């Protein structure tokens, strides 16, 4: 997992890797939360382009971060999820909590 913070845009970019399940999401959550509290970003981008699998643990990961960021006025973007992951995001109604985008430029809500 790669985490980068851009001070100019107040944007925290989290590049997730591999498979997101209950096992892997615990460590991801701890690392992301540490970065959120360190920077208090305006925008949190989850880059899903290198994620090969996600179950409902990934939904929990996004929902939990939304609960932290939303009271602070921050927003969440989910970038480049694979089709089978998009399907789970839609099933969970994640577009109500986060912007799902195909790249950093095209944003569909």
């Amino acid at each position, binding site marked *: 997992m790669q985490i980068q913070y851009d001070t100019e845009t107040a944007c925290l970019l989290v590049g997730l890797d591999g498979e997101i399940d209950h096992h892997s999401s615990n460590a991801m959550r701890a690392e992301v939360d540490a970065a959120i509290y360190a920077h208090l970003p305006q925008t949190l981008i989850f880059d899903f382009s290198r994620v090969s699998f996600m179950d*409902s643990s990934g939904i929990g990961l996004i*929902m939990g971060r939304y609960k932290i960021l939303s009271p602070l006025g921050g927003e969440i973007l989910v970038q480049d999820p694979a089709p089978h992951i998009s399907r789970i995001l839609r099933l969970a109604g994640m577009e109500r909590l986060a912007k799902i985008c195909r790249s950093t430029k095209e944003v569909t809500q």
Partner: protein
Amino acid sequence: MKIVNEFKCAFSANSANEGLARAALSAFVIPADPTAQELADLRTVISEAVTNAIVHGYRGTSGEVSIMLRLLPERVVYIRVTDKGCGIPDVARAMEPLWTSAPEEDRAGLGFAIMQTFTDSLHVRSVPGKGTVLTMRRRLGVQDANEAE
């Protein structure tokens, strides 16, 4: 019913084995030539079922999770996940979308909703204090209405 192929295994209720269950399912199902979507769906449902057994069945205590995979005639994939954990006192409530007994762990409460959506049938048999048996069926090669993009 005739069984085309069958696989059984048991492993300890350790979250590292969630990936093992998905890998076993992939290896078992791939010879039946599923589409990428079907394989992704089946990997997701077994991941949800095994995670439920580990997180909710055993709640951090040790125990064993068993899986049985069957390929039945007409390309029906049958998945059974069994635990001898605490059981589910109210199955109907556990199956309600967004209801979770573990909100503090960021569980979304969507496991059963995903399992129901991605399979043709889902059955839960649970006895409090004894454990839970979850069975699912999915026929390959059938385009589901809600799957169409």
